[in-house]
C-alpha cells in the first residue's frame, strides 16, 4: 500500500456493477484479488473472481464461542461482520518456506532463498480494526533492528480496499481500542456501502494516488452521498463490549491474581484465540529433509503461546500451567505489547471471543484482573 497524498483524494460512487468492474480491473492489472466469500458455514477471506463471489445478503451472528451465518433482509455485500481470520493469512502465511539447503559434492551445502514472490495482492473489504492490525504487525515485522523482508514486501505491494462497518457485532470493541469503526488511514480505496429502497451503492474514496487512479472513471459522489456514508459508520459505533486499554496495562503488574486460576480452569489452551487474532505473530520453524537426506528445507509456521513447547528451554518448558500461558497471551496483548511497540496488541475485533470454544472474553478477563469491577 503506497503512502497517502491528500490532494489526490477523490470521492466517488460505484454501483454494484461498478464494483464488479473495479475488481475485474484489479485482476486485469495482475493482482491476486482476495475478498470475502461464503465457504460452507462461514465467510472467509479468499481469492475471488469477481463481485459475484462476495457474500451478498449474508450476515453473521457472533458471541462468545458462537458463530452463525444468517440471511440478512438486504442484499448487503459487506454485511457479514468479520471473517474468522484477518489478513495475516495473506500477509504472513501460516506456512512459509525460509530456505532450501542442498548438500554439495565434496561436503558442505548450499542455501537457496525461498521461491520468487507471488504477484501482488489486492484485499477487498478490509475493516478498520483489520487495518489497525496490519499496521501493528508491520511494526512487529520491521519496526526495530530486524525486518521480515517477505512481510514488508507483501504489504508494500498490496492494494487495500477498506470497507467501513455499518453495524457492530456483539463481540466488537474497536471503539474502545480507538481503531474503528471509521476507516481513517492505511487504505488505497475506502468503501462505504449504502443501501436504501432506491439504491445499493458504494461511496468510494481514494486514499492514495494508486487508489485515485482506480476510481478515475467513477462518478463523483454528491455531498448527500458523503453525508450518508458518515452516518453509516456512526451506527457501527454502538458497541456492547468495552475494554479500557489504559487500565489493562496493569495486567503485567498482577501476575498472581486469583483470576488467572479461574480463567485457566475454563481455558482449553487450544490456541484458537492466537490463530484468529489478527495481530498474533508468533511462529515456529520446522526442518524437513528428503529421504536421502540430501535436500533439506526450513519452514516457518504459525505457532501459539498456548502450546507447552512454545517456552521450551533445555530441560523443559517454562510455562507449564494453563494459567501461565493464558496470562502470557493476554498480558502480552494488552500490556507488554505497549512496552515493546508503544501501542496495544489488541485492535478490538473480538475474534478471540467468538472463536474461543468456551467463550472466554478478553474484555471480561482484563476488567476482572485489573480490578475494574466488572465480571
Amino acid at each position, binding site marked *: 500500500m503506497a503512502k497517502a497524498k491528500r490532494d489526490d483524494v477523490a470521492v466517488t460512487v460505484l454501483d454494484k456493477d461498478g464494483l464488479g468492474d473495479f475488481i475485474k480491473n484489479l485482476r486485469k492489472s495482475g493482482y491476486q484479488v482476495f475478498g470475502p466469500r461464503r465457504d460452507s458455514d462461514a465467510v472467509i477471506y479468499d481469492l475471488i473472481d469477481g463481485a459475484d463471489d462476495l457474500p451478498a445478503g449474508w450476515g453473521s451472528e457472533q458471541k462468545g464461542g458462537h458463530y452463525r451465518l444468517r440471511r440478512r433482509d438486504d442484499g448487503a455485500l459487506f454485511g457479514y461482520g468479520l471473517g474468522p481470520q484477518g489478513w495475516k493469512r495473506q500477509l504472513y502465511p501460516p506456512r512459509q518456506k*525460509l*530456505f532450501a*539447503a542442498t*548438500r554439495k559434492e565434496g*561436503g*558442505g*551445502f*548450499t*542455501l537457496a*532463498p525461498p521461491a520468487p514472490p507471488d504477484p501482488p495482492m489486492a484485499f477487498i473489504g478490509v475493516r478498520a480494526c483489520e487495518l489497525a492490525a496490519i499496521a501493528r504487525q508491520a511494526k*512487529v*515485522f520491521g519496526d*526495530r*533492528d*530486524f*525486518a*521480515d*523482508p*517477505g512481510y514488508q514486501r507483501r504489504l508494500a505491494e498490496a492494494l487495500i480496499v477498506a470497507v467501513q462497518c455499518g453495524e457492530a457485532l456483539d463481540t466488537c470493541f474497536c471503539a474502545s481500542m480507538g481503531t474503528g469503526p471509521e476507516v481513517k488511514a492505511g487504505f488505497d480505496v475506502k468503501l462505504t456501502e449504502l443501501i436504501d429502497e432506491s439504491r445499493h451503492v458504494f461511496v468510494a474514496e481514494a486514499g492514495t494516488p494508486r487508489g485515485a487512479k482506480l476510481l478515475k472513471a467513477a462518478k463523483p459522489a454528491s455531498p448527500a452521498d458523503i453525508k450518508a456514508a458518515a452516518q453509516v459508520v456512526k451506527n457501527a459505533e454502538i458497541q456492547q463490549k468495552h475494554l479500557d486499554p489504559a487500565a489493562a496495562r496493569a495486567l*503485567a503488574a498482577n*501476575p*498472581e491474581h486469583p483470576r488467572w486460576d479461574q480463567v485457566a480452569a475454563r481455558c482449553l489452551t487450544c490456541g484458537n484465540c492466537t490463530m484468529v487474532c489478527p495481530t498474533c*505473530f*508468533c*511462529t*515456529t*520453524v520446522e*526442518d*524437513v*529433509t528428503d529421504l536421502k*537426506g540430501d535436500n*533439506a528445507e*526450513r519452514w*516457518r509456521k504459525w*505457532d501459539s*503461546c498456548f502450546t507447552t513447547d*512454545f*517456552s*521450551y*528451554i*533445555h*530441560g523443559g518448558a*517454562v*510455562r*507449564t*500451567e494453563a*494459567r*501461565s500461558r493464558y496470562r*502470557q497471551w493476554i498480558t*502480552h496483548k494488552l*500490556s*507488554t505489547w505497549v*512496552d*515493546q511497540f508503544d501501542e496495544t496488541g489488541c485492535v478490538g475485533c473480538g475474534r478471540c471471543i467468538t472463536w474461543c470454544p468456551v467463550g472466554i472474553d478478553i474484555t471480561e478477563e482484563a476488567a476482572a484482573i485489573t480490578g475494574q469491577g466488572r465480571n
Partner: protein
Amino acid sequence: MNVLPHDPMVPVPFRIEKVRRDLSDTFTMEMVPEAGGDFAFRPGQFNMLYVFGVGEVPISISGDPADRSVLVHTTRAVGTVTEALDALKPGDVLGVRGPFGTAWPVEAAFGHDLVFVAGGVGLAPLRPAIYQAMAHRERFGRVIVLYGARTPEDILYKKELERWRGRFDLDVLVTVDRATGKWGGNVGVVTNLVARGGFDPLNTASFVCGPEVMMRYAAAALEKKGVARDNIWVSVERNMKCGCGLCGHCQWGPHFTCKDGPVFRFDGIADLFQIREL
C-alpha cells in the same frame, strides 16, 4: 556482522576448522565463513547455529571479539541439535545466523573493579568479555573471575583458567560443588566466593552468567556485599528461535530475550526473576 544476509532468517554457511573436546559433553568449535570474510561480534552476543536438516539452536559466542578471522562456539550437547553439532568434524559445514542480542558492557565498566561470576558452561558467554577486559586491563581496578563448577572434572577452559590465575593482574577463584579426586581448591557454591569480596562494592561492575537460579543468588550475594543493582548484568536464557524478535518465543515479560537481551542490567529485570512461569 559482515556476512549477515538481507533476510535475517537465512543462514550463512561456515566451515568448521577445529573441534576441541572441553568436557565429556562440552566441546568448542572454531569456524570460518565458507565464502571468506570476517565475523564481528560483541561479547555476550549469540548466533543461531543450523545443522543441515536437523535444526537450529542459539549458542553464545565464546571467542575473542578482537579476532574477527574465526568464530568460536562452546556448546554443551544436551538436545537434538546440540548433539548433532557434537557429531560434526573439521571440514563440515553448518549454517550461522547472527550475531544477535545485547552485549556485556565492558567499556561502560571502565574505571571500576570488574567481577565476573560464572557457573558451569556459563563461563563460555563471559569469556569474550574477559578477553576484552584484559585487552584494556589498565582501564579497570581489580579484575576478578569467580567460577563455580559441578566437580573438578567439569571445569571449563581449565588450562586457560590456570594461565589466567598465573597473571598478576587477574584474580581467578574457582570453586566446585563436589570435590573429587585430589582437588585441593574451594568447595561450595560460587556465591560464597562473592561473599568473600576482594573488590570495592561501591565501585564494581559485575557480569554474571550461569543457570538462572545461580544468577539470582549471585546477584543477591553481590547486592548484599553492596554492589548496586544497576552495576550488575546477567545473561538470560529463553527459547530463542529466530534470534531477531520476529517469532515471539523468547518473550519474558516485556522483553524479547533475543534482542533486548540476553544480557540485561539487573535492575531492569530483578522483578521478573521473581515471577514464576513468566
